């Protein structure tokens, strides 16, 4: 055992050194991208920053490189931190809680736990078997996709930290309020019967026994996986955004979807439900639309409905929930999102 412990220590030291080098490189890159694209687009290629083309080309390259760097850095840090939690541990933390505190905790853990909505079914059954109240389970399942690290990172990169923080706060509030309502309605009868009969053996906690080297490797793999999956959507989204930025009339949306139009928010939410495609392509697009007068609350509501209410997740959940409960679930979450959108339009 002595030898393996020393080996693990050496691996951890090496991993920390690599992370330190990567962090320094990241900071250096983040500081040089703006002067670099200024130099290349305006200096070497000779485009004029005052023209539409010059502005759009610079916007495209600068935004793509900034967002990619932000995603790599933030996803890495979040994944390493999340590796200390697991669905297993969350289940133990939520088991036997009372509905009120459990619901709040469920939403918070939904954000913090490493979770893919493809595990929604086993997680749901596991939670029920561990005596987690339905409202806490629902809060977890709503908050987890809504407060998505990729979506929040894009909001931060394109709009700044205030809006990103607002989005996280609003997402948690929608999850807690919607889940509390779902809990009050006594909907347990709409949960498929076999869920309550399934035997769940004492679980294994995959977060145990990991060293720093393992956690950094998980973070690195996650960054690689996410970047490989999203880069085409990011390029298309920011490309369209750059075109809108340069060529669409300034007040296009101020007229049809400004803060004064009461139908804008519900319409945006309705549009967002079937659009589960890819939030990475959608956010740069709405960012460009926002500059053309689309109201901020409408925009946030649209994003929330894109990420929180997705058809594939509903189809998965159908295996454990009866259609009535899924319909009520969608209606309540959508109503919560509409409420948040209207509220933000009124205050922002």
């Amino acid at each position, binding site marked *: 055992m002595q030898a393996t412990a020393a080996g693990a220590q050496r691996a951890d030291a090496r991993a920390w050194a690599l992370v330190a080098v990567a962090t320094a490189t990241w900071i250096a890159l983040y500081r040089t991208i703006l002067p670099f694209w200024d130099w290349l687009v305006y200096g070497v290629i000779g485009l004029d920053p005052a023209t539409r083309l010059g502005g759009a080309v610079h916007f495209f390259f600068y935004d793509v490189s900034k967002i990619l760097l932000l995603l790599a850095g933030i996803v890495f840090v979040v994944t390493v931190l999340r590796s200390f939690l697991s669905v*297993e541990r969350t*289940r133990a933390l939520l088991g036997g809680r009372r509905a009120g505190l459990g619901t709040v905790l469920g939403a918070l853990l939904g954000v913090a736990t490493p979770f893919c909505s493809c595990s929604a079914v*086993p997680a749901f059954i596991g939670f029920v078997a561990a005596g987690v109240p339905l409202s806490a389970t629902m809060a977890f399942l709503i908050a987890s996709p809504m407060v998505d690290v990729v979506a929040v990172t894009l909001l931060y990169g394109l709009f700044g930290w205030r809006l990103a923080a607002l989005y996280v706060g609003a997402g948690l509030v929608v999850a807690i309020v919607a889940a509390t309502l779902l809990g009050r309605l006594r909907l347990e009868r709409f949960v498929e019967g076999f869920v309550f009969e399934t035997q769940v053996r004492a679980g294994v906690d995959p977060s145990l026994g990991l060293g720093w080297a393992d956690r950094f490797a998980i973070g690195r793999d996650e960054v690689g996986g996410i970047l490989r999956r999203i880069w085409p959507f990011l390029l298309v989204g920011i490309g369209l955004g750059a075109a809108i930025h340069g060529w669409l009339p300034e007040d296009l949306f101020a007229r049809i979807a400004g803060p004064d139009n009461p139908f804008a928010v519900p319409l945006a939410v309705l549009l967002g439900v079937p659009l589960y495609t890819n939030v990475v392509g959608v956010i740069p697009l709405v960012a460009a639309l926002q500059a053309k007068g689309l109201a901020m609350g409408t925009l946030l509501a649209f994003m929330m409905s894109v990420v929180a209410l997705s058809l594939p997740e509903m189809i998965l959940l159908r295996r454990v929930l009866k259609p009535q409960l899924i319909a009520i679930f969608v209606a309540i979450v959508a109503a919560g999102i509409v409420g948040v959108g209207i509220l933000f339009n009124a205050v922002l």
Partner: protein
Amino acid sequence: MNVKVLGSGCANCQRLAANVRLALDHAGMTAEVEKVEDIAAIMGYGVTATPALVVDERVLVSGRVPSPTQIAALLRGV
């Protein structure tokens, strides 16, 4: 050796199954890789995060997809 990949057919489960086959090749081992998609059977292993890797009825990994090298190390340890 009995190797099972637990998960309801999502992309990550297929990646895990592929990595397990690569790991078996690496380690020069032969074993049948069985896919378990039945939710009750998955829950029977106490797994709440798929995909999961079960070797000789012991859960070695759940909720993530390790690389073939990492899986090979786990398989040798069994």
